[in-house]
């Protein structure tokens, strides 16, 4: 079988001809058609598909925006306004791209929360989780560089502040910053390279997403109960059950998205970014986009420059170690009464940081940020490792099918032998 044509089961002769030489349809059928998926997903499991759709929307709108955008300090602002005013549907494409960034982070934050709540990061899905963290880091870099491109006041000063973070590194810090800028301040060379990278990174993200999905299809999906499927009675084919369920989620997601784009397109942005960049005057309050606020608050919570930078990057890098920091054998927080509360407090700390990040760096916000930052790290470094040993989890259900269908559907007895075969028949 290593050499020769693939034994295809596709009926259509043309597709079959292709499939025998490149079994792409067999693969699609296997990975998205009959792929056995736990039967008990809730709507939280939509957000992976939503993130995928969102990535595609960003790439499509981005490619078309790039056809009209000019990456030069003298023209960038005006070229964006030309897109808004003169290009046919330019305003729509730009507003979708701009709000799409916010939607992307909303979707991905919920996706991450889903992973945290249901323990999706635990063995055997550690690498799947870590690839996800890589995607998130790439997203942050892409979003940051994209925000610089319109060359408004927030673009310019955001770029200045964030690139200056690297000057915190001892000895080589200043050289790194000069290297990033390609000059002695954020200027045209910086804008040009940010544009180049902003166009490149999404395709790197696509690559890592592919790995993320490939890893997922090796281990299979986690589920709200956090117990592995024990047999075919616990799973259903991905299509049609989850394709249609994802479709419902996509429509709801598009409604939220459309409402933002058509009725409040600038709500999540900052008005100062409609003032052309001026290297001589800093706006009264520099705030990053909302999705960076929690990390910005962590940065400012530390009175030391290097310490702040280290803690800010550490707040995300620590996610890489989460599979080993959480020592509990139980995945789903449904069965972990104490860890569940601890996680919800962590989420609140995250929102508190987001709020503090939007406020000026003064009391009481600095103190609140410090407390929230402390809890943010304590959750990973103290609470989760300790709870694994101390917490007594609730009893886990015997199997997914038993938990979903209950005693009634199964008549209280053992599973009928025929049940096992049913899902595959439908595929």
């Amino acid at each position, binding site marked *: 079988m290593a050499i020769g044509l693939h034994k295809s089961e596709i009926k259509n002769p043309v597709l079959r001809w292709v499939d025998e030489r490149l079994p792409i349809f067999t693969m699609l059928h296997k990975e998205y058609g009959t792929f056995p998926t736990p039967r008990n997903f809730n709507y939280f499991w939509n957000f992976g598909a939503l993130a995928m759709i969102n990535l595609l929307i960003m790439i499509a709108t981005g490619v078309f925006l790039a056809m009209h955008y000019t990456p030069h300090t003298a023209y960038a602002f005006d070229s964006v306004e*030309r897109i808004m005013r003169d*290009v*046919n*549907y*330019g305003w729509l*494409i730009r507003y979708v791209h701009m709000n799409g960034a916010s939607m992307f982070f909303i979707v991905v934050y919920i996706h991450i929360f889903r992973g945290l709540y249901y323990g999706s990061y635990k063995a055997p899905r550690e690498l799947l989780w870590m690839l996800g963290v890589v995607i998130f880091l790439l997203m942050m870099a892409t979003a940051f560089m994209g925000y610089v491109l319109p060359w408004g006041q927030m673009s310019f000063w955001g770029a200045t502040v964030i690139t200056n973070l690297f000057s915190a590194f001892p000895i080589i810090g200043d050289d790194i910053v000069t290297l990033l800028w390609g000059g002695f301040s954020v200027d045209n060379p910086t804008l040009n390279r940010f544009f180049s990278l902003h166009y490149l990174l999404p395709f790197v993200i696509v690559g890592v997403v592919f790995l993320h999905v490939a890893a997922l299809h090796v281990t299979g999906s986690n589920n709200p109960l956090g117990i592995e499927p024990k047999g075919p009675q616990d799973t259903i084919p991905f299509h049609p059950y989850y394709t249609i369920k994802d479709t419902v989620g996509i429509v709801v997601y598009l409604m939220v998205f459309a409402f933002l784009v058509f009725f409040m397109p600038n709500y999540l942005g900052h008005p100062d970014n409609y003032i052309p960049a001026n290297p001589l005057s800093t706006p009264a309050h520099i705030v990053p986009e909302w999705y960076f606020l929690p990390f910005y608050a962590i940065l400012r919570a530390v009175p030391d420059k290097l310490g702040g930078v280290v803690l800010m990057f550490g707040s995300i890098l620590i996610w890489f170690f989460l599979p080993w920091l959480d020592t509990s054998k139980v995945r789903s927080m449904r069965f972990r009464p104490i860890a569940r509360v601890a996680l919800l407090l962590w989420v609140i700390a995250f929102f508190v940081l987001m709020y503090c990040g939007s406020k000026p760096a003064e009391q009481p916000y600095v103190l609140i940020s410090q407390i929230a930052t402390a809890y943010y790290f304590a959750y990973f470094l103290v609470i989760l490792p300790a709870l694994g040993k101390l917490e007594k989890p609730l009893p886990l259900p015997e199997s997914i099918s038993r938990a979903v269908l209950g005693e009634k559907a199964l008549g209280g007895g053992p599973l009928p032998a025929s049940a096992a075969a049913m899902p595959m028949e439908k595929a």
Partner: protein
Amino acid sequence: MADTAAQSVAQTGTKRDFLKLTATAFAVVGVGAIAWPFIDSLNPARDTLALATTEVDLAPIQPGMAVTVMWRGKPVFIRHRTEQDIAAARAVKLSELKDPATDESRVQRPQWLVMIGVCTHLGCVPLGQRPTDNKGDFDGWFCPCHGSHYDTSGRIRRGPAPSNLEIPPYTFISDTQIRIG
């Protein structure tokens, strides 16, 4: 009992098919509607369209002279023809022409010939605007790329070009001013 069961199965079957069909139709319409803004964004933008007309002052152009102006990124030839030019153009029989057109059909006022200066063969710009240019065998224009000869009415007379030089839409705003486009 069995009958009713079969009936209800058939009913739900058609209902679901109808529902699925409608839902699929919606998806198709949705995707189509999403595609249009993207496609339309490739069309000329409004500032480009706003520059789609050019006004030209004809007063300084002496008889026998020509000017070239830019219109929609292409050269437009405007020649102030002499009586001889006009007479030569009108003397030609239609049967001698590769792309038959009377001189009268190609001008609004006989002394002013306005044409797009792009050879209809492969898009080169013909010579013949400056007094020193090679005007070709018919005292009109000559395309140096592949040797097409145009007469004083801009009609193709010899060479590979398939048709006469194109006439842009234009109007006389006054006796000495035209608006192209």
